[in-house]
């Protein structure tokens, strides 16, 4: 670790001293480099490439910094650097839609930062002026600081109900940016939680079931909302909401079961990062894949990993998740059976969503691909292949480093069954032409509306102002002048008399 506290801000320190920061850092680096290489190709002919790379670099730096941060301030610096710079990526296309989404993103990002700032402050203060988050572990949480941290970081992490910006910002950003946003950046929220919310804290343990439920809701909500959209990137964004719900559940389980859940969490993060990045990248090039089986197969590989087909990284993490859940000591009102069956139905829904995504991706016509973005096709697909390859190589890493249990046969069956069920459902659906009324699809989220309202609030045209009441004394003065404009000598002499009499009477 590098101690910079005598140079930079107080308490500054960088280093990868923890069990989870090291793999996190490596994974993020890999993904950033891969996607970076990808954008080298995809953004080559971008008119605003300079801007793209500026914000890309800033985001990159921020992300790496926050992972390596040993103290709250460094983390906060990296976090805000990343969040704000991501704004540049979100509105990179500079369309009206992008600007709207960017506005929402920025509003929430700033809000999140301020909340995080307040939470960190409270924590630092409670820790007696220690900024090193390792030393915070033993410091008990308070409801205020815990909720501030959860909200502040959750706004970045994007699980329900703090997910508003995800479905807006991801679709408008360039594909690599979306991949990074969804693959790495939203994980920073989770990382913050890991760092600043000690799992062993009593208050956290009280709140963990609630978080668990929230994660569950988020997992379901993301899928269901995604099913109601037809744009591939929106669907992917909702999928991220759903997946962040699973991660939140894992985070809650960390308190309920102890550190043993940590490898699962890490594995899930890596798995989701890779898979979601792949899918976003593919969504950006879907037009080029039309009619090319190999390219579509790559998509299916990524999708299947998402669907947790056995032997995939998804299978490993889902199984481990379920195992941890059943092992957890839950409060009485949370039945483990219900939870595990819910998880299973969640798997069905996930698979359903991905099938829905695949269907929508097929609809993307080759003609949608412009000439400009069609350059460097080979290189991009090669990089994509590399990414998917990495994704499928993940199980090996997981087994190697985190000792995740390999799914047993029955567990594999339990994994496949939902997928098959989903396929069946989808086929039926397709055959029977089940369809909700059209207006249920692609509904605008109210978030944009509120964002606009908010903007009007903070950019008011006029404000009520209090003015001094103007008193016109001029007429009074004029009258007074007229009254006083009398013969001077006699008035003064008379006043003299008057004064004499008055002082005399007052008792000299």
């Amino acid at each position: 670790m590098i101690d910079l506290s005598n140079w930079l801000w107080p308490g500054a320190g960088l280093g990868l001293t923890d069990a989870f920061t090291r793999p996190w850092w490596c994974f993020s680096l890999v993904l950033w480099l891969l996607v970076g290489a990808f954008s080298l190709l995809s953004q080559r002919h971008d008119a605003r490439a300079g801007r793209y790379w500026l914000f890309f670099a800033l985001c990159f730096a921020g992300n790496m910094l926050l992972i390596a941060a040993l103290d709250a301030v460094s983390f906060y610096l990296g976090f805000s650097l990343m969040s704000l710079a991501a704004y540049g990526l979100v509105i990179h296309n500079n369309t009206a839609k992008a600007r709207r989404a960017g506005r929402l993103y920025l509003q929430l990002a700033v809000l999140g930062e301020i909340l995080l700032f307040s939470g960190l402050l409270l924590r630092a203060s409670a820790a007696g002026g220690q900024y090193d988050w390792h030393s915070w572990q033993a410091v008990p949480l308070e409801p205020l600081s815990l909720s501030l941290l959860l909200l502040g970081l959750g706004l970045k992490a994007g699980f329900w109900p703090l997910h508003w910006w995800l479905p807006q910002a991801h679709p408008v950003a360039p594909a690599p940016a979306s991949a990074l946003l969804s693959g790495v950046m939203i994980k920073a929220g989770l990382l913050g939680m890991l760092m600043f919310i000690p799992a062993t804290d009593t208050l956290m343990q009280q709140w963990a079931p609630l978080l668990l439920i929230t994660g569950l809701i988020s997992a379901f909500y993301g899928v269901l909302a995604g099913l109601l959209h037809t744009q591939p990137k929106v669907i992917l964004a909702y999928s991220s909401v759903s997946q962040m719900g699973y991660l939140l559940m894992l985070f809650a389980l960390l308190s309920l079961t102890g550190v043993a859940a940590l490898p699962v969490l890490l594995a899930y993060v890596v798995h989701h990062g890779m898979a979601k990045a792949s899918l976003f990248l593919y969504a950006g090039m879907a037009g080029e894949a039309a009619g090319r089986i190999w390219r579509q197969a790559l998509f299916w590989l990524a999708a299947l990993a998402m669907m947790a087909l056995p032997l995939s990284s998804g299978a490993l993490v889902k199984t481990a998740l379920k195992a941890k859940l059943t092992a957890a000591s839950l409060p009485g009102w949370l039945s483990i059976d219900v939870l595990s069956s819910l998880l299973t139905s969640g798997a069905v829904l996930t698979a359903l969503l991905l099938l829905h995504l695949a269907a929508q991706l097929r609809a993307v016509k080759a003609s949608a691909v412009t000439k400009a973005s069609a350059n460097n096709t080979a290189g991009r697909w090669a990089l994509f292949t590399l990414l998917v390859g990495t994704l499928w190589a993940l199980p090996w890493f997981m087994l190697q480093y985190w000792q995740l249990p390999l799914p047993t046969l029955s567990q594999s069956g339990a994994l496949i069954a939902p997928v098959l069920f989903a396929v069946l459902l989808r086929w039926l659906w397709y055959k029977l032409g089940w369809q909700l009324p059209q207006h249920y699809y692609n509904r605008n989220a109210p978030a944009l509306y509120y964002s606009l309202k908010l903007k009007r609030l903070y950019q008011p045209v006029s404000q009520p102002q209090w003015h001094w009441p103007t008193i016109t004394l001029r007429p009074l003065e004029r009258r007074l002048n007229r009254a006083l404009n009398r013969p001077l000598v006699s008035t003064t002499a008379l006043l003299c008399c008057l004064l004499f009499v008055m002082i005399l009477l007052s008792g000299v």
Partner: protein
Amino acid sequence: MTDLSSQLLLYIGTAAGLFGIGLYGFIVGPQTLRRILALNIIGAGIFMLMVVLAYRGLAEEAALTLTDPVLHALILTGLVVAVSATAFALALLTRLNQAKSAQCKPDQLRHGQEPEQ
């Protein structure tokens, strides 16, 4: 109430009365010249008072057989001062009138009325 003899009382009363009359004239009299006269009357009243005060010794027929010379000297000084001031005031008044008549030659009607102070 008083130890003064009736003659002194009479003169003191007159002096005070002159002061009052002068004061009244000073306040009321609309023309400046009359105010100057009023001032002189006030002055005369005060000087008279002083004369009476100087006379007290004689009226008492006490051991002293003299009027108070200091007071007499003061009155003389005061008289000269008063007349000097009056002369100056009148010179100013004359100048004022001249300036005014030079100013409002065309308006003959106003001449008789000396404007208020």
